[in-house]
């Protein structure tokens, strides 16, 4: 996928001025937050579940190789195959050659964020395969030729009207069942068009929310049932999953599932929770002839041993996006790569490099709400700060900002000079503001004063005034 992270500031500004986007974001933000709140209010054991889930993930990460090998061997015993991919190119090559081996022309695809991460659609299309997205949101943005703007709701930035327009222009000539006036109308229309694709597809590709080591199963949660059709109708099912998705047991899976949907959409559980174990058995009525799992590393095994290890606990619920005031203001596309919001600002620099990604780590007030709502208690602000430390070390900060901060620190490190300057500067600004109490324009601070006044200092520093008062009291004045 194309990387536009460096343009975050400009893209954010454009997003703030995009009225349609703002309307869509406003609706989505409130909805996700309120629904999660309501779901948690009915789950008094949330904190215990959170601790349990964290312990499961920590344990798994400490024995990651072991559980991945167990998973592989269980997949094989159920008749499937596991493929290991170090990087995106290898993962795409594996997927493409599996499709070629199956003489495939049409690929039905479920939603997979790791698929986005490795640029799977581009690779499949470059191999002259036709790819149809079957998740409604993904289907919408495929028609619009856009990347997802949210990790669980890829088309959250689109209004109903925009979606109806897209369908009208792309399904032209196929004849609508009825005018697309409501959400069910849109869903029905997508279902009508997609049904034939499911039946005609040669390969189904899905992601996975979890991989279960003890059974060799992959777990997928959806609300549309498209995952089931994608995986069971075509003769070949390929699962693309990143390595940290593995958990030891079915029991562990249930704990994570209880947190996932509640944190994501506020549902107690998603409409469909599907477990895929191997290809069709002789006793099965249906199902794929082949079952493949492509395990993608793409830097994750390195994260195991560095400051970003906690990020491997992420279950991709999107709660950090939904509660992030920056994401809520600008939406996902401004971030310029696959993963937006706080989790994205931690992951993106690790995956595309700090040179392109460091601006994302800056785009946070470190308000901490992401960590607060994260069902896996991932310390996202700490890791954003970690990126900032590395950026500063690598000299990636803009020279002017770096200079200004360094200048400030140099003064703060000299208490006498500091005292002298604070005293004079505060009196000066106080005088300039006069009786008004605020400044409307301040040189070098246009960013602040374009929309805000700068309250004026009261004049004179506190510490000096305090000393004076102590002196006066001491001498009985």
């Amino acid at each position: 996928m194309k990387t536009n992270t460096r343009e975050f500031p400009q893209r954010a500004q454009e997003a703030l001025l995009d009225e349609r986007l703002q309307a869509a974001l406003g609706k989505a933000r409130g909805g996700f937050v309120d629904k999660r709140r309501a779901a948690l209010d009915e789950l008094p054991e949330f904190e215990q579940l959170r601790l349990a889930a964290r312990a499961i993930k920590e344990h798994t990460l400490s024995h990651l190789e072991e559980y991945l090998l167990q998973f592989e061997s269980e997949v094989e015993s159920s008749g499937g195959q596991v493929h290991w991919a170090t990087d995106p190119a290898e993962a795409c090559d594996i997927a493409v050659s599996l499709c070629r081996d199956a003489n495939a022309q049409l690929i039905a695809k479920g939603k997979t964020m790791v698929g986005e991460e490795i640029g799977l659609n581009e690779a499949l299309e470059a191999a002259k395969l036709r790819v149809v997205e079957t998740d409604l949101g993904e289907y919408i943005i495929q028609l619009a030729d856009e990347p997802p703007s949210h990790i669980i709701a890829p088309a959250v930035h689109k209004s109903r009207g925009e979606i109806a327009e897209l369908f009208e222009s792309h399904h032209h000539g196929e004849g609508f069942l009825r005018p697309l006036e409501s959400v069910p109308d849109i869903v029905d229309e997508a279902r009508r068009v997609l049904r034939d694709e499911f039946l005609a597809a040669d390969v189904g590709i899905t992601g996975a929310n979890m991989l279960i080591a003890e059974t060799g199963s992959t777990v997928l949660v959806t609300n549309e049932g498209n995952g089931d059709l994608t995986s069971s109708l075509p003769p070949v099912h390929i699962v693309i999953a990143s390595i940290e998705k593995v958990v030891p047991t079915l029991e562990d899976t249930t704990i994570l599932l209880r947190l996932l949907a509640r944190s994501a959409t506020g549902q107690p559980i998603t409409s469909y929770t599907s477990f895929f174990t191997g290809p069709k058995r002789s006793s099965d009525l249906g199902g794929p002839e082949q079952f493949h799992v492509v395990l993608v590393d793409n830097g994750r095994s390195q994260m195991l041993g560095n400051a970003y290890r906690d990020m491997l606990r992420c279950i991709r619920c999107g709660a950090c996006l939904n509660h992030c005031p920056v994401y809520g203001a600008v939406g996902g596309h401004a971030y310029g790569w696959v993963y937006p919001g706080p989790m994205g600002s931690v992951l993106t620099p690790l995956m595309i490099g700090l040179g392109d990604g460091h601006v994302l780590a800056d785009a946070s007030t470190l308000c901490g709400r992401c960590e607060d709502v994260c069902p896996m208690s991932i310390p996202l602000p700490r890791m954003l700060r970690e990126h900032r430390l590395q950026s500063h070390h690598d000299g990636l900060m803009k020279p002017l900002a770096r200079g200004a901060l360094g200048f400030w620190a140099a003064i703060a490190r000299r208490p006498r000079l500091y005292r002298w300057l604070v005293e004079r500067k505060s009196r000066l600004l106080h005088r300039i503001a006069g009786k008004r109490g605020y400044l409307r324009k301040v040189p070098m601070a246009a960013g602040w004063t374009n929309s805000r006044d700068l309250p004026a200092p009261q004049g004179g520093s506190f510490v000096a005034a305090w000393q004076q008062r102590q002196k006066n009291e001491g001498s009985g004045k």
Partner: protein
Amino acid sequence: MRVALFATCLVDFMRPSVGFAAAKLLQQAGCTVDVPVAQTCCGQPAWNNGDANNARHLARQMIDVFYDYDYVIVPSGSCAGMLRHHYPTVLADDPDYSLKASELAVRCHELTGFLVDVLGVTSTGATFDGRLTWHDSCSCLREMQVSQQPRQLLTSLPGCELVELPDNEVCCGFGGTFSVKFPEISTRMVTDKVDAIVATGAATVAAADLGCLLNIAGRISRRELPIRVFHVAELLAGMTDTPAIGEES
């Protein structure tokens, strides 16, 4: 009990009345208050911008200034959070200071948290007339676990009607240098915050962090809204005769 007041660089520079109010509240509660003259900045701007070297220098300097006191009290959640939660990380690899950083950290408190949790203060003797709303700064709320304490003290003021702010858990968009690096996003966030304040019908908004307050007051002043902005210490010390933040004198 010997208590050092770390006024914070913003209070020192912008609003000495907050420092005097904080000192008054502490003295009223029986503390002997010192204001060490060598205090400057806690180093948070450096730390949040990845400048580890300057953050370490400033943290060591602060520890030298404040180490000998029983408590270090800060009229700011974010600067208190810097001392309490970040200094031990900043100085983790410093053989001379890592232990000191941890020792100082546990003696460092945000002002209202200290008054209520440590000193058991239930009222401050001031009064306040009117409807007030409270802005939870992110660092008070999430880093320092200070949210009920200021509410308790404010509701103890005779005449004070405290109304809750919708979306009180959402950041005001200040974020230190964030407000300068991403001014448009910051503006959008503070605009939402000010809209929420307006919706409460309160004539006064208070918080425990001057950074947030300057941001909110700056936006309120630009929009020429009749809402007064005060630091919580000023209200608790009965200092509402002082012009509010950004207000005409």
